[in-house]
């Protein structure tokens, strides 16, 4: 009986020890501290009356609907962006001009249009062309458009990633009898993935803040609710400042969590001699 208990305790200690010793633990802990700290500051401000009843009421929408929508928009844009970026990045290193050339044109075009102009155009133009009546359709396409814009930048990140893998790695894989597809899957992609992660994390951070442009189309994200509620607080500069400070903090939290999540993935796949400096 005693022995069994001791065994279990040791096993638990083992698991606990493994978690504590894992290289990711410190990073996760740090992010948790920072995020908890920010919410603690907001809660304290509320408890001490620094955030009064009226301001607290004005903060409700940004803290709930606004933050929720910004998260949804950011994740959607990142998913669309990575997909497009990866495909186009791959297309750009293709030896066939019919594949690489359209990808190059796409990247050049997208990089040349301000994202705000792009989403306004998409918002009105695409539903019209597709003859859609759904009033939310325009917004959905605008979200996709930001993803496509980010995709152009990510295409360059992936292209650089693919090009950074020496041609001799493929040669070695093929010399072993691996097919082209197998070389891609087991040799090129795992290395490209490690090389591109830091730059991708950076791009994701940019994209989170680009979603604030959607407020121009009345998408109810953080920025929209900030502007909306700040308008109803006209004459109370302290409230207006309070609202925007909280919104800035929320954007910070979201960006911080995403970049450090990418950093954590980077850390756990780190291989000596591959990839770049730890940030």
């Amino acid at each position, binding site marked *: 009986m005693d022995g069994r208990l001791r065994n279990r305790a040791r096993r638990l200690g083992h698991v606990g020890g493994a978690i504590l010793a894992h290289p990711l633990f410190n990073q996760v802990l740090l992010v948790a501290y920072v995020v908890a700290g920010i919410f603690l500051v907001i809660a304290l401000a509320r408890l001490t009356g620094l955030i009064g009843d009226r301001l607290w009421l004005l903060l409700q929408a940004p803290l709930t609907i606004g933050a929720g929508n910004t998260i949804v928009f950011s994740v959607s844009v990142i998913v669309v962006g990575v997909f497009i970026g990866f495909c186009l990045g791959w297309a750009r290193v293709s030896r066939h001009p019919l594949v690489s050339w359209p990808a190059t044109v796409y990247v050049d075009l997208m990089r040349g249009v301000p994202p705000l102009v792009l989403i306004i155009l998409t918002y009105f133009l695409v539903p019209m062309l597709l003859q859609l009546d759904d009033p939310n359709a325009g917004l959905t396409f605008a979200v996709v458009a930001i993803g496509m814009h980010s995709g152009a930048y990510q295409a360059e990140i992936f292209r650089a990633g693919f090009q950074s893998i*020496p041609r*001799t*790695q493929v*040669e*070695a*894989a*093929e*010399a*072993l*009898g*691996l*097919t082209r597809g*197998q070389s891609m899957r*087991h*040799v090129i992609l*795992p*290395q490209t993935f*490690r090389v591109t992660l830091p730059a991708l994390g950076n791009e994701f951070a940019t994209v989170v803040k680009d979603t604030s442009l959607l407020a121009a189309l009345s998408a109810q994200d953080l920025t929209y609710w900030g502007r909306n509620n700040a308008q109803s607080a006209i004459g109370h500069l302290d409230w207006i400042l309070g609202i925007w400070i909280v919104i800035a903090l929320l954007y910070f939290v979201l960006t911080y969590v995403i970049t450090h999540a990418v950093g954590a993935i980077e850390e756990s796949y780190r*291989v*000596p*001699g*591959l990839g770049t400096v730890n940030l």
Partner: protein
Amino acid sequence: MIRVDGIHKWFGALHVLRGISFEVAKGDVLVVVGPSGSGKSTLLRCINLLIPPDKGDVFLEGVRVTSPEIRPEWVRQQVAMVFQQFNLFAHLTAINNVTLGLRKVMNMPEKEARKKGTALLASVGLGHKMDAYPAELSGGQQQRVAIARALAMDPKAVLFDEPTSALDPEYIKEVLDVMTRLARDGMTMIVVTHEISFAKNVASRVLFMDEGAVLEQGTPDQVLGSPQHERTKTFMSKILV
């Protein structure tokens, strides 16, 4: 075992291989020497079809591997290759470099592949470096892992493309020792190298190439000891033995 029959290769207007023919018997070690740019590396790559020859044929145990019906992947399983720059997979540990082909090409179960890989790494003296990444190994150690990786597929022959040229002098011997043992064990090898003493000690035949053509071939004593061709004489007099 390997017969090369009149192969030609052009890179654009550049005529890199001009009708090369030779034969390597089972268990033989053919050493190919010659100045840089003479087409030695291209010749090796034509044998395992990493570079398809434009004209001529390569036979492996009587099978014409340059025939369109033959999958190049199959040929490369039979004829392994060791590169000048080692070309180890940078994201894989030594053991996984050795077992990648076993696991993905031969579909060998993980455990069995690991067992074989462990034995191979031990045989090149790297049993203690199984879990090291290429960047953590010296050049000599990387090249020995690369040799173990080539041997993992149980090849019928191994091609060596200047295996010691990228090494610091202190690491050359450990690689040559592994190669010598491999030759003594009866492996069929084609070795492009500037290590003349290795050629003298290990080669069954030596082939001298210049400007994409074979100028001279024969026993090490003939080609390296008393070369007949003017170009071979000049080359031999210029290099350190």
